[in-house]
C-alpha cells in the first residue's frame, strides 16, 4: 500500500440528493472535503479533495446525516507516493445515515501487451 499524498473526488448525484458539507473518513477519522465545488442536489456534480500525506488503510465517503443520497458515479483521482497518478470510477450506490462507501483502490497492477 503506497502513501496517499492527496486525492480528488467528483460525485454525480441522481434524483435524490443531500446537503453539504460532504464528509469522508481516512482511517476512521471523519473530515470534510476541501476545495468543494458544485453541489450534491438532484442531478448536481460535486468535486472536492484533500491532502492526506499518510497511508490509507481505509478511505470512505460518508452518507448523509439523514435521508438517502443516490449517487450515480464517483470518480476518484489518487496521487500516491512512488506511483503514477491513477483514477478509479465507482458505479451507482445509495448512502444513508448508516452507511459509508469505500473509495480506496490500490494502484492498478502493472499490465502490458504480450
Amino acid at each position, binding site marked *: 500500500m503506497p502513501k496517499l499524498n492527496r486525492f480528488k473526488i467528483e460525485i454525480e448525484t441522481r434524483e435524490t440528493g443531500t*446537503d*453539504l*458539507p460532504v464528509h469522508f473518513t*481516512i482511517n476512521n*477519522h*471523519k*473530515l*470534510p472535503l*476541501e476545495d*468543494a*465545488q458544485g453541489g450534491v442536489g438532484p442531478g448536481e456534480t460535486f468535486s472536492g479533495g*484533500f*491532502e*492526506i*500525506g*499518510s497511508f490509507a*488503510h*481505509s478511505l*470512505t465517503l*460518508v*452518507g448523509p446525516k439523514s435521508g438517502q443520497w443516490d*449517487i450515480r*458515479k*464517483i470518480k476518484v483521482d489518487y496521487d500516491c507516493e512512488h506511483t503514477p497518478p491513477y483514477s*478509479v*470510477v*465507482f*458505479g*451507482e*450506490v445509495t*448512502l444513508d*445515515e*448508516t*452507511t*459509508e*462507501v*469505500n473509495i480506496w*483502490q*490500490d494502484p492498478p*497492477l*502493472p*499490465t*502490458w*501487451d*504480450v
Partner: protein
Amino acid sequence: MSVLKKLSQMFSEPDTQDKKAGETASEVQDPSSSQSPFAEPPPVGRRVIQASVIVGQAEEMNQSDDILIKAEPSRDNGQCKFMVNRPLFEGHSWMFSNFEEAAGSPLAESVFSVDSVETLLIHDSTAVVTKTGAKGLSDWEALAKEVGGVLRKTLEAGTDMVSKDIIAQIPTEEVVRDEIQKVIDTEVNPGVAGHGGKITLTAVTGNTVTIEMGGGCQGCSAADLTLKQGIHSAFRKAVPYVGAIYDETDHAGGLNPYYR
C-alpha cells in the same frame, strides 16, 4: 494540509479549526463545532459498503478483431494473469496442476512447454500461470511474452482448447454445489471454527466456485494461507472437477480477525 496536521489541530487548536471550516463557503457550521470534540454525541455506527468499479479496458479489448493478450502479474508476483479477448474455456474453468494433466488439452500443453511454468488455471477468457521461483516483476517480463506467444499460436490454430475428457467429467452446477457444500460442512468449517471462522459458499457458476470468509477469517492476516493451503486443497482433493476458486471476502471490513 496533511491529515495528521488536520487531526492535530482538531484536538489542540479548536479555534483555528473553526476558522478554517468557516472559510469554506460550502460547509455548514455545525453547532457542536465550537465545543470540545469530546462533547459531541457518539457517532452513528456506519457500515462500509462497496460500489462496483467501472472498468473500461475490457470493452476496448473486446472490440478488436486481432487476438489481444495482456499480462498482469499479481501484487506479490506469485502468479501472472493473461487476459485474452477470446474465450479459452467459455463458461467453465479448469486447473492444470502439472504437465501430465495437460495431456490432450492443446492450450495447456503449449503453456506447459514454456520452461518453469508450474500450474495453469483457465477460466472463460483468462489464464493464470504460476512459475517456479517467481519473486519479482522482472521474473515475469520474459516469461509472460513467451506464454503470450504460445497462447496466441494455439488460438490461431483454432483447435479445441481443452480435451474432451475434461469436458465430459464436469458435472452440473447442482452437483458441484452439493459436493462443495459437503466439504465445507464436514471439513472446512469444523477446521476454521476453532478460530471463530466460517466459510460460506456464495456462488457456483459452471464448475467455478466463489466463497466468502466470515468471523475470525474475515480480515485475518493468515486468510490467504487458509484459502490456498486449506480450502483449495480440501476442495480439489474431494471434488477434482472444481475449477477456479474465488474468495470475494471484504477483508478490510473484518471486525474480529483471528490474526491481526
